[in-house]
């Protein structure tokens, strides 16, 4: 079997062996044994977010519906598509030079896969808000916030808030009528914050009303600041899941 020989040759290669740590299913000599199954998750940077073993009942799709994992997947998808969109976008909206809006038009007209990636980013964002909501409901109905998981629930609520902020700051960026007025509705509400209302609104808008400085401010919040904070809270969230004893239950 020439095929088999090729596989062995590749797997014996010194570079291949240096990349795939013991227990990797791509490494020579992986056997479906308890030891290698344990090593497969232990020796992989991504998989070791999970413990080596999980409670059997947590595998049932109807227990978690994978909602937390899917929220994370959507976050990654939004990061990747978002970086793509950043290549073609300028957060400038000065009168007569509304580059932001022009870039959006160009993106759909003349960038390869531009419209598709923007669609993915848009629908993915809505989907993420939705999965995060559902994830919260799932956790509540399983009573999974009970000790020792109280604090992780609080972190989760903060992550929900961050998800909403991420989505809302992104809403302004196309700089079309839809964006401008949807954001106007939202920021007017924040202006009614007791005591500091006017100051809050001024800081958020970078001025007295929505304008070019608001766009730049929300762009930086959307692509850098809020994702940065979100990643920190995500790390704490995942870490606490493991430290608090893995998936909750069984009921």
């Amino acid at each position, binding site marked *: 079997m020439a095929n088999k020989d090729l596989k062995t040759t590749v797997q014996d290669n010194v570079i291949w062996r240096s990349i795939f740590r013991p227990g990797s299913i791509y490494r020579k000599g992986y056997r479906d044994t308890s030891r290698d199954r344990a090593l497969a998750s232990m020796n992989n940077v991504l998989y070791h977010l999970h413990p080596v073993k999980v409670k059997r009942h947590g595998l049932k799709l109807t227990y978690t519906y994978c909602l937390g994992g899917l929220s994370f997947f959507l976050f990654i998808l939004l990061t990747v598509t978002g970086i793509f969109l950043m290549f073609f976008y300028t957060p400038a909206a000065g009168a007569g030079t*509304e580059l932001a809006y022009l870039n959006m*038009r160009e993106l759909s007209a003349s960038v390869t896969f531009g419209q598709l990636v923007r*669609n993915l980013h848009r629908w993915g964002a809505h989907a993420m808000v939705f999965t995060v909501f559902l994830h919260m409901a799932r956790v509540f109905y399983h009573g999974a916030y009970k000790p020792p998981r109280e604090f992780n629930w609080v972190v989760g*609520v903060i992550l929900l808030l961050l998800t909403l902020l991420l989505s*809302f700051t992104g809403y302004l960026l196309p700089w079309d009528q839809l964006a401008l007025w*949807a954001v106007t509705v939202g920021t007017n509400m924040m202006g009614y914050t007791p005591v500091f209302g006017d100051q809050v609104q001024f800081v958020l808008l970078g001025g007295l009303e929505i304008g070019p400085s608001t766009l730049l401010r929300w762009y930086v919040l959307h692509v850098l600041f809020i994702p940065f904070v979100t990643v920190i809270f995500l790390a704490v969230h995942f870490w606490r899941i493991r430290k608090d004893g893995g998936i909750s239950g069984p009921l």
Partner: protein
Amino acid sequence: MSDEVQIDQEVFDRLVAEGKSERIARAKAKAASVRKARAAEGVALGPRPAEQAATALEEFRSSQGGGGGVATKTAAPADAGGAAGGRLTPDQRAARVAASLGNGGGESASMGVPAASDHTHRLLALVPPAGIQQVQSKQMDKVYTWPHLLLVEFVALLAVGSLLLVMSFFLDAPLGSLANPNEVPAINKAPWYFMGLQELLRYFHPMVAGVTLPGVALVLLMAAPYVDKNPSARPENRKVANLAFTFFLTFWGILVIIGSFLRGAGYEWVWPWVQGLGFTL
């Protein structure tokens, strides 16, 4: 332990004469004297060949009388009732799990594993009894993350990913006309997840609808685990909590649906089948 190891003066002097620092010379001289003492006792030094190490381990095990953290063998295929190739049938696995969970009688109080069961986990080996950590939690029915959980996650990821891709292929994200601060559009709505708030704005002062109510909701949500002192997670034991949460979700959902679909120009009530859908994602 108590008696200080004497340094080998000869080696020490030689190393110092060679210009080594006194600290290093003392350490090497100590090691030399230990080696000399071992050799005098007839103990072989250096790494031992594999078979010799195995014999030593066997000797140690027999001298410890089967205790001392030597892992007990898991259920052998023979007493699993002729399972092919060491694999268990679902029935056998269930029986074994039940036995190890202590449902089969003969429980051991300390480990949560029945003494009669030969299916145990020993995490420590060759440790004095005082050093063994007593694990109080019961052994649970667990499976390996790879391949079981990762497979489920991978399929879920592919399903949602392809769904999004298909949706993005056929449905374009909306893009209106250029933003114009001087022209208020007839239908003026926030993103859908804030429509509940916008709907509340219809009935309350903005300070209540836009700031106070969402603030209180958020604080209540975060406080939930500290307020809900009920230790049970079973739905039949927490009807009040589930009812309250369901009420909250339903209330919120209705507000979002009204705001999104039943409000039109000037935020007046409309029927979508009469005046059309005033909703953009």
